[in-house]
């Protein structure tokens, strides 16, 4: 039953994607800057005929609704077009970059949960203690710290000063790895390549902390406040009255309910992580989607922007679906 519901939800993403595609299509065409002009601006000599020819090739000489028709028709066949600037199919470009971004997003999600869960729980249980105040101050710092600044501080300390971790990239140039999924940590495990696993994990640490710090701070605060609320409820008093240990009260009775708002926030933060990638990917020269999109926007590479935004939208919709499914496990009263 649940599987059918999930399938239904997946189907509802189709109209959402359709809407996103149309909005993005029109919005990027509203921005000033003509792609053909930008493309040929790079070339030393371009005749009027060549300009017109190029416009024709990209259907830019046709009315907008016709262009939209081409785009949607191609998109339905799984063809998102050719990048104007990079001479490569958009699907290939996205496939090449997406694994790096997913790896970094998952890494930072993991880091943020490792930081946030114990801090959130401890500061709720020991409300107003030194630990609570200290970690909430830390959370405040985490929220206010810009990613690029934290990234550079971490690089200077851990890469330059201590030389424990690498400052940039995803893998050392002297490490060989057979790519399967494009997610290096996963690929190293799949191919049983221990040196590559260690190296890719080392490369993942600093960018994940940089990207995850802000999310950790938010999640810790949300978890703390929702746990505080739950801990004041009657059924917790009952559990204590029954003689349950404090550990059982918090971990078994209270945490489960407190996690519902936390999971919602984590789900929303995945979107923030995807967006935040643009900066962190630049600081750590992580060859992911974020930098590709920024480049595409500057060059008015319409097909690439459209493709990337659709990927972001799909990820966001699917993450929300995962969150909804998680609700049903945390509280069986909730149905999809």
């Amino acid at each position, binding site marked *: 039953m649940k599987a059918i519901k999930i399938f239904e939800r997946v189907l509802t993403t189709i109209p959402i994607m359709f809407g996103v595609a149309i909005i993005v299509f029109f919005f990027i065409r509203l921005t000033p800057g003509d792609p053909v002009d930008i493309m040929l601006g790079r070339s030393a000599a371009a*005749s009027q005929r060549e*300009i017109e020819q190029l416009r024709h090739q990209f259907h830019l000489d046709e009315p907008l609704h016709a262009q939209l028709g081409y785009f949607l028709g191609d998109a339905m066949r799984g063809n998102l077009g050719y990048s104007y600037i*990079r001479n490569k199919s958009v699907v290939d470009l996205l496939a090449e*970059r997406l694994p790096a971004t997913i790896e970094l997003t998952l890494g930072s999600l993991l880091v943020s949960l490792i930081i946030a869960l114990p801090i959130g729980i401890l500061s709720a249980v020991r409300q107003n203690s030194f630990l609570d105040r200290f970690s909430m101050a830390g959370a405040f710092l985490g929220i206010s710290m810009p990613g690029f600044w934290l990234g550079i501080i971490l690089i200077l*300390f851990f*890469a330059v000063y201590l030389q424990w971790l690498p400052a940039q*990239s995803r893998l050392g140039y002297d490490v060989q790895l057979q790519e399967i999924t494009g997610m290096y940590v996963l690929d190293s495990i799949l191919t049983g390549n221990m040196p590559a696993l260690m190296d890719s994990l080392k490369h993942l640490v600093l960018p994940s902390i940089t990207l995850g710090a802000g999310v950790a701070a938010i999640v810790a605060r949300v978890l703390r406040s929702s746990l505080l609320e739950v801990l004041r409820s009657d059924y917790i008093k009952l559990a204590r009255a029954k003689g349950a240990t404090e550990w059982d009260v918090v971990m078994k009775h209270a945490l489960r309910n407190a996690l519902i708002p936390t999971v919602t926030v984590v789900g929303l933060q995945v979107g923030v992580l995807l967006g935040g990638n643009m900066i962190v990917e630049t*600081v750590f020269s992580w060859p992911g989607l974020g930098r590709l999109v920024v480049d595409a926007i500057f060059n*008015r590479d319409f097909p690439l922007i459209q493709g990337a935004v659709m990927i972001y939208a799909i990820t966001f919709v699917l993450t929300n679906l995962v969150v909804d499914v998680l609700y049903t496990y945390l509280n069986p009263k909730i149905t999809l």
Partner: protein
Amino acid sequence: MNRVRIIQVTLLAATLWLLAACAAPTAQVVEKTVVVEKPVEKIVEKTVVAEKTVIVEKTVVVQPTAVPGRDTLVVALARAPQGIDPADHSSREAETVIRNVYDGLVTRDATSGVHMEIAESVKWLDTKTLEIKLRKGVKFHDGSELKADDVVFTFDRVFKTNAIEFPQPHTALRKGFLGPLGTAEKKDDYTVVMNFTAPWPAAMQLLVHTQIVSKAYVQKVGTKGLIEKPLGTGPFKFVSSKTGLEEVVLERFADYYGGAPTLTPVGKSCVSRAVFRVIPENSTRVAALLAGEVDVIAEVPAELVDTLKKVPGVQVKTVPGTRPIWMEFNVKQAPFDDPKVRQALNYAVDKNLIIKKVYNGLAQPLAGALMPTNNFADPSLKPYAYDKAKALALLKEAGWVPDASGMLMKDGKPLAFVIDTIDSIRPLTEALATLLRDIGVDASVRVWEYNVVRTKLLAGERQAYVGDWGDSAFDPVGHMEAKWHSLVTGSTYGRGNFSGYSNARVDKLIKDGEIENDAAKRKAIYNEAQKLIYDEAPAIFLVLPEAIEAAGARVQNWTPASDSRENLHDVCLK
């Protein structure tokens, strides 16, 4: 307790770093490492420009020294190359990778001297016909020998309409570098004749930018295959690349013929492997060098030079760049339609102060339309001196008089305008606006995205623009026509003329210079054009920033090139 200690240490480190960053002196003058052109190289270049002379080569063979330990040279670039097809690219990073994998008929040294590379000699048969004799025994990375067919094929791919078939048929982006080429023909296996439709004195400087591909290979694998696995005759073989050329791995080509005989050392590359990595963020690039992860970094920000120089073992070298910067006035609009106002504002800017404060001393003042390192820059023109009194006197002649508050006024209106610029030149523009405000001009700064502002500038919709324009050919061709010729829509003339400057005499001189084969006459033509532009001042001639690079302690025999190309052939690791 332990956690508190870790946090204390981290905070301490952060504070120290911040203090170090704040304390970084900006006003110190930094010693410059100037690359001195060797006399031999100059002679070669001059011989070529003088035409009709066969170049006699002198070969000096120097074997690369064997290097123990890690033998991979890692170079960090600021941007990913955009495509690595020698016929179809437009970024300097692409050219860097290409010119380590491919060789051209001729090449350039670290400054502006041109040297024979695959060509053994070149000879002008007449003003429009160039005969090129090819060196024998030059091998492509697949072992086949380079012959005249490959050269003709390469030129055809570059200049013929729609010669590149992938992804859609289109004309190569490098077409402009072959000037008025009409046909390229094979005379025999080792001789190629280029027939131009007009005389083309800039040929040698521009031929540097065309690298030779293998006809058989490209016909076999197509453009797509060539981009995926480049194959040339250069000192390095292409091994692999990762995600959109974020990393390119090359290895020594064992059968390399040695490269230009006049550029020592001649022979195989010194390192066995070379890796290009893209690190876009300046601080990370510097950190990666300090952490020993990379050996050479490009585009070091001027403000970090002092800090880097204090690190033991780090080498910092600078060379005059090729991106001069001007503030172009919209000369078709008041108040800039008056040459006196434009000249006055040239006198109002203390370029030396800008160089000291914004560029940490690492820039040169411009004395007009061409950068000082252009082979045709007129040395008799001196940069407009900083002279506030003269500026105010000229403005007074133009009707602009300071009011009680010191603001320049004419007919009750202040001298106010917006200076447009792009993000990379923002610090200079802000300093410039401050200097202009100092004499009573109400100047403000607006930062744009270049691709957006470019069309507005060409349409004459803006007032003033601070921008740069690349001049890596060291020849006025391509530069004068783009920047100072009147805009001719649908042509290359005036494509970068953001001031709207239009002078019939200058236009004629620019066109004459393009086809004048006599070097002395050509120099006279360009000198006259430069003088006119200097006097009419369609722009505030600002600065030419140095290109700054840094390398680790193990790097030897490394020289940054003026045209921003990383030539890895000679670099060794100890």
